[in-house]
Protein backbone atom coordinates (compact mmCIF):
# COMPACT_ATOMS: atom_id res chain seq x y z
CA UNK A 1 0.00 0.00 0.00
CA UNK A 2 3.05 2.27 0.04
CA UNK A 3 2.26 3.39 -3.49
CA UNK A 4 -0.87 5.07 -2.18
CA UNK A 5 1.29 7.55 -0.27
CA UNK A 6 3.83 8.31 -2.99
CA UNK A 7 3.98 12.04 -3.86
CA UNK A 8 3.68 11.35 -7.60
CA UNK A 9 2.21 8.59 -9.70
CA UNK A 10 3.22 8.05 -13.34
CA UNK A 11 1.28 10.39 -15.63
CA UNK A 12 -0.03 7.58 -17.83
CA UNK A 13 -1.32 5.63 -14.79
CA UNK A 14 -3.14 8.75 -13.52
CA UNK A 15 -4.59 9.45 -16.96
CA UNK A 16 -5.78 5.88 -17.39
CA UNK A 17 -7.54 6.00 -14.01
CA UNK A 18 -9.18 9.31 -14.98
CA UNK A 19 -10.38 7.59 -18.19
CA UNK A 20 -11.94 4.82 -16.08
CA UNK A 21 -13.51 7.45 -13.82
CA UNK A 22 -15.15 8.91 -16.95
CA UNK A 23 -16.60 5.48 -17.78
CA UNK A 24 -18.09 5.21 -14.27
CA UNK A 25 -19.55 8.72 -14.58
CA UNK A 26 -21.21 7.90 -17.91
CA UNK A 27 -22.45 4.56 -16.59
CA UNK A 28 -23.91 5.68 -13.25
CA UNK A 29 -24.66 9.40 -13.73
CA UNK A 30 -25.21 9.52 -17.52
CA UNK A 31 -22.91 12.58 -17.64
CA UNK A 32 -19.43 13.43 -18.85
CA UNK A 33 -17.04 14.91 -16.25
CA UNK A 34 -16.81 18.72 -16.38
CA UNK A 35 -15.75 21.54 -14.09
CA UNK A 36 -16.40 25.02 -15.44
CA UNK A 37 -20.24 24.98 -15.32
CA UNK A 38 -19.99 24.70 -11.53
CA UNK A 39 -18.04 28.00 -11.49
CA UNK A 40 -20.77 29.68 -13.57
CA UNK A 41 -23.47 28.33 -11.22
CA UNK A 42 -21.51 29.58 -8.20
CA UNK A 43 -21.10 33.07 -9.62
CA UNK A 44 -24.85 33.00 -10.30
CA UNK A 45 -25.51 32.07 -6.65
CA UNK A 46 -23.27 34.93 -5.47
CA UNK A 47 -24.95 37.37 -7.87
CA UNK A 48 -28.36 36.20 -6.67
CA UNK A 49 -27.36 36.91 -3.06
CA UNK A 50 -26.15 40.40 -4.02
CA UNK A 51 -28.74 41.45 -6.58
CA UNK A 52 -31.72 39.32 -5.67
CA UNK A 53 -34.16 37.59 -7.98
CA UNK A 54 -33.38 39.86 -10.99
CA UNK A 55 -30.38 37.57 -11.52
CA UNK A 56 -32.72 34.75 -12.43
CA UNK A 57 -34.00 36.80 -15.38
CA UNK A 58 -30.63 36.59 -17.10
CA UNK A 59 -30.78 34.37 -20.16
CA UNK A 60 -27.60 32.56 -19.20
CA UNK A 61 -28.93 31.58 -15.78
CA UNK A 62 -32.11 30.28 -17.36
CA UNK A 63 -29.87 27.88 -19.30
CA UNK A 64 -27.61 27.12 -16.32
CA UNK A 65 -29.63 27.83 -13.15
CA UNK A 66 -27.51 28.87 -10.16
CA UNK A 67 -28.21 25.74 -8.13
CA UNK A 68 -26.17 22.95 -6.62
CA UNK A 69 -26.25 20.05 -9.08
CA UNK A 70 -24.20 16.85 -9.39
CA UNK A 71 -21.30 18.66 -11.13
CA UNK A 72 -21.13 21.26 -8.37
CA UNK A 73 -20.76 18.43 -5.83
CA UNK A 74 -18.11 16.86 -8.08
CA UNK A 75 -16.09 20.09 -8.18
CA UNK A 76 -16.48 20.45 -4.39
CA UNK A 77 -14.89 17.02 -4.07
CA UNK A 78 -11.77 18.01 -6.05
CA UNK A 79 -10.04 20.12 -3.35
CA UNK A 80 -10.99 17.48 -0.75
CA UNK A 81 -9.38 14.71 -2.79
CA UNK A 82 -6.31 16.80 -3.59
CA UNK A 83 -6.03 17.63 0.13
CA UNK A 84 -6.10 13.92 1.03
CA UNK A 85 -3.46 13.14 -1.58
CA UNK A 86 -1.21 16.07 -0.56
CA UNK A 87 -1.45 15.48 3.18
CA UNK A 88 -0.96 11.72 2.98
CA UNK A 89 2.10 12.10 0.75
CA UNK A 90 3.61 15.01 2.68
CA UNK A 91 3.33 17.48 -0.21
CA UNK A 92 0.72 19.78 1.40
CA UNK A 93 2.11 23.27 1.89
CA UNK A 94 0.54 26.69 2.22
CA UNK A 95 2.02 28.69 -0.61
CA UNK A 96 1.11 32.15 -1.88
CA UNK A 97 3.54 32.24 -4.78
CA UNK A 98 4.74 29.13 -6.68
CA UNK A 99 8.52 28.60 -6.60
CA UNK A 100 8.89 28.82 -10.40
CA UNK A 101 7.20 32.24 -10.28
CA UNK A 102 9.45 33.39 -7.41
CA UNK A 103 12.53 32.42 -9.43
CA UNK A 104 11.50 34.59 -12.35
CA UNK A 105 9.23 37.37 -11.09
CA UNK A 106 10.30 37.52 -7.43
CA UNK A 107 8.40 36.74 -4.22
CA UNK A 108 5.86 39.61 -4.46
CA UNK A 109 2.38 38.30 -3.66
CA UNK A 110 0.52 41.22 -5.28
CA UNK A 111 2.05 40.67 -8.74
CA UNK A 112 1.31 36.94 -8.68
CA UNK A 113 -2.27 37.41 -7.43
CA UNK A 114 -3.04 40.13 -9.97
CA UNK A 115 -1.74 37.99 -12.83
CA UNK A 116 -3.60 34.93 -11.52
CA UNK A 117 -6.79 36.98 -11.14
CA UNK A 118 -6.53 38.25 -14.73
CA UNK A 119 -5.75 34.73 -15.95
CA UNK A 120 -8.64 33.27 -13.95
CA UNK A 121 -11.00 35.89 -15.38
CA UNK A 122 -10.05 34.99 -18.97
CA UNK A 123 -10.10 31.25 -18.22
CA UNK A 124 -13.60 31.49 -16.67
CA UNK A 125 -14.87 33.68 -19.51
CA UNK A 126 -13.31 31.50 -22.22
CA UNK A 127 -14.48 28.23 -20.69
CA UNK A 128 -18.10 29.35 -20.74
CA UNK A 129 -17.69 30.94 -24.18
CA UNK A 130 -16.36 27.62 -25.54
CA UNK A 131 -18.90 25.60 -23.50
CA UNK A 132 -16.30 23.70 -21.49
CA UNK A 133 -12.77 23.59 -20.13
CA UNK A 134 -9.79 21.25 -20.07
CA UNK A 135 -11.90 18.53 -18.42
CA UNK A 136 -15.28 18.99 -20.15
CA UNK A 137 -13.85 19.52 -23.63
CA UNK A 138 -10.22 18.41 -23.24
CA UNK A 139 -10.92 14.99 -21.75
CA UNK A 140 -14.68 14.22 -21.73
CA UNK A 141 -15.45 15.73 -25.12
CA UNK A 142 -12.31 14.46 -26.84
CA UNK A 143 -12.92 10.88 -25.70
CA UNK A 144 -16.42 11.11 -27.24
CA UNK A 145 -14.71 12.25 -30.45
CA UNK A 146 -16.74 15.49 -30.46
CA UNK A 147 -15.51 17.92 -33.12
CA UNK A 148 -16.27 20.90 -30.82
CA UNK A 149 -13.98 19.44 -28.16
CA UNK A 150 -11.02 18.63 -30.41
CA UNK A 151 -11.18 22.17 -31.84
CA UNK A 152 -11.55 23.77 -28.40
CA UNK A 153 -8.68 21.68 -26.95
CA UNK A 154 -6.37 22.75 -29.78
CA UNK A 155 -7.36 26.39 -29.10
CA UNK A 156 -6.81 25.95 -25.30
CA UNK A 157 -3.22 24.84 -25.87
CA UNK A 158 -2.54 27.33 -28.68
CA UNK A 159 -3.67 30.21 -26.44
CA UNK A 160 -1.95 28.77 -23.38
CA UNK A 161 1.39 28.21 -25.09
CA UNK A 162 1.22 31.72 -26.56
CA UNK A 163 0.48 33.51 -23.28
CA UNK A 164 2.92 31.44 -21.19
CA UNK A 165 5.75 32.00 -23.67
CA UNK A 166 4.96 35.74 -23.94
CA UNK A 167 4.80 36.12 -20.14
CA UNK A 168 8.06 34.28 -19.54
CA UNK A 169 10.00 35.86 -22.40
CA UNK A 170 8.76 39.27 -21.21
CA UNK A 171 10.32 38.58 -17.81
CA UNK A 172 13.58 37.39 -19.30
CA UNK A 173 13.72 40.50 -21.51
Amino acid at each position, binding site marked *: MEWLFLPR*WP*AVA*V*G*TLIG*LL*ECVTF*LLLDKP*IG*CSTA*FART*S*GMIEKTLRGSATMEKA*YYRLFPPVI*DWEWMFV*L*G*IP*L*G*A*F*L*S*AVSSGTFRIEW*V*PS*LWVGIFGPGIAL*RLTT*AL*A*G*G*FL*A*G*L*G*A*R*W*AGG*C*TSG*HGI*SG*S*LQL*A*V*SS*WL*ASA*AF*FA*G*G*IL*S*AILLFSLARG
Partner: protein
Amino acid sequence: MEKIPFLLPEAARKPFALFLGILFGFLLQKGGVTRYEVIIGQLLLLDFTVLKVMLSAVLAGMLGIQVLLHLNLVALHPKHGSVGSSVIGGLIFGLGFGLLGYCPGTAAGAVGQGSLDALFGGVCGMLLGTAFYSGIYPRIEATVLRWGTFGEITLPEVLHAARWKVVIAVAAVIATALSAMSFLGL
Protein backbone atom coordinates in the same frame (compact mmCIF):
# COMPACT_ATOMS: atom_id res chain seq x y z
CA MET B 1 -33.72 9.47 -24.88
CA GLU B 2 -32.55 5.92 -24.46
CA LYS B 3 -32.59 4.37 -21.01
CA ILE B 4 -29.35 4.13 -19.05
CA PRO B 5 -29.73 0.81 -17.14
CA PHE B 6 -27.32 1.57 -14.27
CA LEU B 7 -28.28 5.23 -13.79
CA LEU B 8 -28.30 5.90 -10.04
CA PRO B 9 -31.56 7.01 -8.39
CA GLU B 10 -31.87 10.81 -8.13
CA ALA B 11 -31.14 10.94 -4.39
CA ALA B 12 -27.85 9.06 -4.74
CA ARG B 13 -26.40 11.15 -7.57
CA LYS B 14 -25.07 14.17 -5.67
CA PRO B 15 -23.35 12.17 -2.89
CA PHE B 16 -21.86 9.86 -5.51
CA ALA B 17 -20.69 12.85 -7.59
CA LEU B 18 -18.94 14.21 -4.47
CA PHE B 19 -17.19 10.86 -4.07
CA LEU B 20 -16.12 10.88 -7.75
CA GLY B 21 -14.86 14.46 -7.36
CA ILE B 22 -12.73 13.37 -4.38
CA LEU B 23 -11.22 10.59 -6.51
CA PHE B 24 -10.64 13.03 -9.39
CA GLY B 25 -8.94 15.59 -7.12
CA PHE B 26 -6.82 12.82 -5.56
CA LEU B 27 -5.71 11.70 -9.04
CA LEU B 28 -4.98 15.23 -10.28
CA GLN B 29 -2.76 15.88 -7.26
CA LYS B 30 -1.00 12.50 -7.61
CA GLY B 31 -0.37 13.26 -11.28
CA GLY B 32 1.31 16.54 -10.37
CA VAL B 33 -1.04 18.55 -12.58
CA THR B 34 -2.31 20.66 -9.66
CA ARG B 35 1.19 22.22 -9.54
CA TYR B 36 1.78 25.57 -11.26
CA GLU B 37 5.28 24.40 -12.28
CA VAL B 38 3.92 21.34 -14.10
CA ILE B 39 1.22 23.22 -16.03
CA ILE B 40 3.51 26.09 -17.00
CA GLY B 41 6.19 23.50 -17.88
CA GLN B 42 3.71 22.02 -20.35
CA LEU B 43 2.75 25.38 -21.86
CA LEU B 44 6.45 26.26 -22.24
CA LEU B 45 6.89 22.81 -23.86
CA LEU B 46 9.44 21.70 -21.26
CA ASP B 47 7.43 19.11 -19.28
CA PHE B 48 4.85 16.91 -21.01
CA THR B 49 3.05 15.60 -17.91
CA VAL B 50 -0.22 17.42 -18.66
CA LEU B 51 -0.40 16.08 -22.20
CA LYS B 52 0.45 12.55 -21.03
CA VAL B 53 -2.32 12.63 -18.39
CA MET B 54 -4.86 14.02 -20.86
CA LEU B 55 -3.98 11.72 -23.75
CA SER B 56 -3.98 8.57 -21.60
CA ALA B 57 -7.32 9.64 -20.06
CA VAL B 58 -8.79 10.13 -23.55
CA LEU B 59 -7.35 6.76 -24.67
CA ALA B 60 -8.70 4.76 -21.73
CA GLY B 61 -12.00 6.63 -21.61
CA MET B 62 -12.58 6.39 -25.35
CA LEU B 63 -11.98 2.62 -25.42
CA GLY B 64 -14.07 2.07 -22.27
CA ILE B 65 -16.96 4.17 -23.55
CA GLN B 66 -16.85 2.36 -26.90
CA VAL B 67 -17.31 -1.01 -25.12
CA LEU B 68 -20.07 0.37 -22.87
CA LEU B 69 -21.76 1.93 -25.90
CA HIS B 70 -21.65 -1.42 -27.70
CA LEU B 71 -23.37 -3.01 -24.67
CA ASN B 72 -26.01 -0.22 -24.66
CA LEU B 73 -25.02 0.83 -21.14
CA VAL B 74 -24.19 4.49 -21.83
CA ALA B 75 -25.26 7.36 -24.09
CA LEU B 76 -22.94 9.96 -25.64
CA HIS B 77 -23.24 13.67 -24.87
CA PRO B 78 -21.07 15.51 -27.41
CA LYS B 79 -21.16 19.29 -26.97
CA HIS B 80 -22.60 21.69 -29.50
CA GLY B 81 -19.93 23.68 -31.30
CA SER B 82 -19.20 26.50 -33.71
CA VAL B 83 -16.02 28.23 -34.82
CA GLY B 84 -17.12 31.36 -32.91
CA SER B 85 -17.65 29.37 -29.72
CA SER B 86 -15.04 26.59 -29.75
CA VAL B 87 -12.14 28.45 -31.38
CA ILE B 88 -12.62 32.01 -30.07
CA GLY B 89 -13.72 30.83 -26.61
CA GLY B 90 -10.92 28.27 -26.59
CA LEU B 91 -8.30 30.91 -27.39
CA ILE B 92 -9.62 33.25 -24.65
CA PHE B 93 -9.51 30.31 -22.22
CA GLY B 94 -5.97 29.47 -23.34
CA LEU B 95 -4.67 33.01 -22.80
CA GLY B 96 -6.04 32.87 -19.26
CA PHE B 97 -4.72 29.34 -18.72
CA GLY B 98 -1.16 30.53 -19.49
CA LEU B 99 -1.39 33.55 -17.14
CA LEU B 100 -3.01 31.60 -14.31
CA GLY B 101 -1.09 28.34 -14.63
CA TYR B 102 -4.15 26.30 -13.62
CA CYS B 103 -7.43 25.36 -15.32
CA PRO B 104 -10.80 25.22 -13.50
CA GLY B 105 -10.39 21.61 -12.27
CA THR B 106 -6.71 21.82 -11.41
CA ALA B 107 -7.21 25.20 -9.68
CA ALA B 108 -9.80 23.54 -7.40
CA GLY B 109 -7.26 20.75 -6.77
CA ALA B 110 -4.43 23.22 -6.15
CA VAL B 111 -6.54 24.89 -3.43
CA GLY B 112 -6.61 21.51 -1.64
CA GLN B 113 -2.81 21.23 -1.63
CA GLY B 114 -2.45 24.71 -0.11
CA SER B 115 -1.78 26.85 -3.21
CA LEU B 116 -3.40 30.14 -2.27
CA ASP B 117 -2.75 31.81 -5.62
CA ALA B 118 -5.15 29.22 -7.08
CA LEU B 119 -7.81 30.29 -4.57
CA PHE B 120 -7.50 34.09 -4.37
CA GLY B 121 -6.33 34.50 -7.96
CA GLY B 122 -7.66 31.48 -9.84
CA VAL B 123 -11.01 30.63 -8.29
CA CYS B 124 -11.96 34.29 -7.65
CA GLY B 125 -10.91 35.28 -11.17
CA MET B 126 -12.88 32.42 -12.71
CA LEU B 127 -16.00 33.38 -10.76
CA LEU B 128 -15.65 36.97 -12.04
CA GLY B 129 -15.03 35.71 -15.59
CA THR B 130 -18.09 33.46 -15.60
CA ALA B 131 -20.21 36.27 -14.09
CA PHE B 132 -19.00 38.60 -16.87
CA TYR B 133 -19.89 35.94 -19.44
CA SER B 134 -23.45 35.73 -18.12
CA GLY B 135 -23.70 39.49 -18.75
CA ILE B 136 -22.42 39.46 -22.34
CA TYR B 137 -24.14 36.18 -23.27
CA PRO B 138 -27.31 37.80 -24.72
CA ARG B 139 -25.15 39.93 -27.05
CA ILE B 140 -22.87 37.18 -28.38
CA GLU B 141 -25.47 34.42 -28.41
CA ALA B 142 -27.04 35.46 -31.71
CA THR B 143 -23.78 36.63 -33.29
CA VAL B 144 -20.27 35.32 -32.47
CA LEU B 145 -21.44 32.03 -30.99
CA ARG B 146 -23.24 31.21 -34.26
CA TRP B 147 -20.30 31.84 -36.58
CA GLY B 148 -19.45 28.64 -38.37
CA THR B 149 -21.93 26.48 -36.47
CA PHE B 150 -21.41 22.74 -36.90
CA GLY B 151 -23.41 21.49 -33.89
CA GLU B 152 -22.94 18.27 -31.98
CA ILE B 153 -21.13 16.31 -34.66
CA THR B 154 -18.44 13.76 -33.88
CA LEU B 155 -15.41 12.65 -35.92
CA PRO B 156 -17.05 9.41 -37.21
CA GLU B 157 -19.90 11.53 -38.65
CA VAL B 158 -17.48 13.94 -40.32
CA LEU B 159 -15.45 11.07 -41.77
CA HIS B 160 -18.54 8.98 -42.68
CA ALA B 161 -16.83 6.01 -41.03
CA ALA B 162 -17.96 3.42 -38.51
CA ARG B 163 -17.41 4.68 -34.98
CA TRP B 164 -15.26 1.73 -33.90
CA LYS B 165 -12.90 2.26 -36.83
CA VAL B 166 -12.33 5.89 -35.85
CA VAL B 167 -11.86 4.83 -32.21
CA ILE B 168 -9.14 2.36 -33.25
CA ALA B 169 -7.44 4.93 -35.49
CA VAL B 170 -7.46 7.64 -32.78
CA ALA B 171 -6.28 5.09 -30.19
CA ALA B 172 -3.37 4.16 -32.45
CA VAL B 173 -2.42 7.84 -32.91
CA ILE B 174 -2.55 8.50 -29.15
CA ALA B 175 -0.58 5.33 -28.32
CA THR B 176 2.05 6.35 -30.87
CA ALA B 177 2.24 9.87 -29.43
CA LEU B 178 2.61 8.52 -25.87
CA SER B 179 5.32 6.06 -26.96
CA ALA B 180 7.14 8.80 -28.86
CA MET B 181 7.11 11.04 -25.76
CA SER B 182 8.47 8.20 -23.67
CA PHE B 183 11.10 7.36 -26.33
CA LEU B 184 12.22 11.00 -26.51
CA GLY B 185 12.37 11.14 -22.71
CA LEU B 186 9.80 13.97 -22.50
